[in-house]
């Protein structure tokens, strides 16, 4: 026996909003009735759940780098993750590492971000230069936080990396601060 075909599939954006509990209660109720009657749409919801779990798992395992928020760091601590944090002022430097017992490293670049509309993060190290354009930031936070891939950090030899935050607008770009990380494997 095969399964009947859905002739009114739920738009993907609506499925995502449903997943995050962003729909009005009556919309949510209608959607749940549809999902429990529809193999295709519930399969798509299952796929979204699987993808979401995979995203969480990739971050938890230290496989990916991400710019994050202070509240997110707080949540990681509350979950019991062992974080090694490095807070660096503009023009400052820090000796850093990652140990076998650390779940993640959080770099906190102190910065005056008021008035900035776009911020880029530039990495300069012995391997060359890389630029992360238009990173997310909260101007009032006074810092940019990022969580490098723990898996990649563990493979790195001793080296020095410099990060530069740049404010970018129509007039050009101006440096916000340089931050030096002197990495030693543990």
């Amino acid at each position, binding site marked *: 026996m095969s399964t009947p*075909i*859905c002739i*009114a599939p739920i738009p*993907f954006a609506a499925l995502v909003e449903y997943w995050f509990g962003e729909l009005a209660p009556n919309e949510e109720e209608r959607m749940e*009735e549809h999902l429990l009657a529809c193999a295709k749409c519930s399969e798509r919801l299952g796929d979204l*759940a699987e*993808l979401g779990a995979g995203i969480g798992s*990739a*971050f938890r395992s230290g496989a990916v780098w991400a710019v*994050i928020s202070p509240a997110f760091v707080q949540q990681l601590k509350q979950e019991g993750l062992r974080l090694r944090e490095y807070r660096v002022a503009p023009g400052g430097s820090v000796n850093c590492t990652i140990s076998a017992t650390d779940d993640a490293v959080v770099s906190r670049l102190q910065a005056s971000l008021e008035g900035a509309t776009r911020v880029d993060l530039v990495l300069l190290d012995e391997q060359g230069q890389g630029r992360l354009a238009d990173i997310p930031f909260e101007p009032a936070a006074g810092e940019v936080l990022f969580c490098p891939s723990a898996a990649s950090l563990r493979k790195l030899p001793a080296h020095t990396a410099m990060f530069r935050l740049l404010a970018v607008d129509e007039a050009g770009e101006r440096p916000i601060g340089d931050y030096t990380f002197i990495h030693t494997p543990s």
Partner: protein
Amino acid sequence: MHTRGPDQPLDDAALARAIAAAAPRVDQEAEAELYRRLAPRVRAYGLRHLRDAHAAADLMQQVLMMTLERLRDGRLREPEKLASFVLGMCRMVVLETRRGTARREGLLRTYGEVPEAMDPPEQRGLDEAKLSSCLERLPERERSVLILGFYADKPADAVARELGLSAVNARVIRHRGLLKLRECMSTNDGHS
């Protein structure tokens, strides 16, 4: 909502009717087919509300046992409303689970074990290395919004507040990122 495919399969309501009509005999074929259809739907509901794969699997088993038992007892008067009927039971079990009063063993005593022919459907595995590679390719904002959303389980307005975005913008970024991820996962060049 549904139409018959070319091979004209029985719809869910027809299966529900067949199960009720067979009582006190058990229509194993109809029950197995209805279980096969409903299991992934109920599991997806469980994932959405319980955010835990094991809890969703438990919910799926409890709800389907209760559904089949009630269909055999003729307690669904309007088989066309099977989805509403199942939704009602899903909500009840989720509430019980949240209250901590759900007792799977008790339900098993009441409704019996699930027949071996109705083992839960297998889950497809995600290629984790490929997903990490695809995530690394996303622009920073998209990756951050997706990680804060899915790892921290935050809706768009909360993510927006933390990252200095508007809620509408956070939704757009999330949507764009998910589309790119799905596209990347479906291609063969996702590996770094």
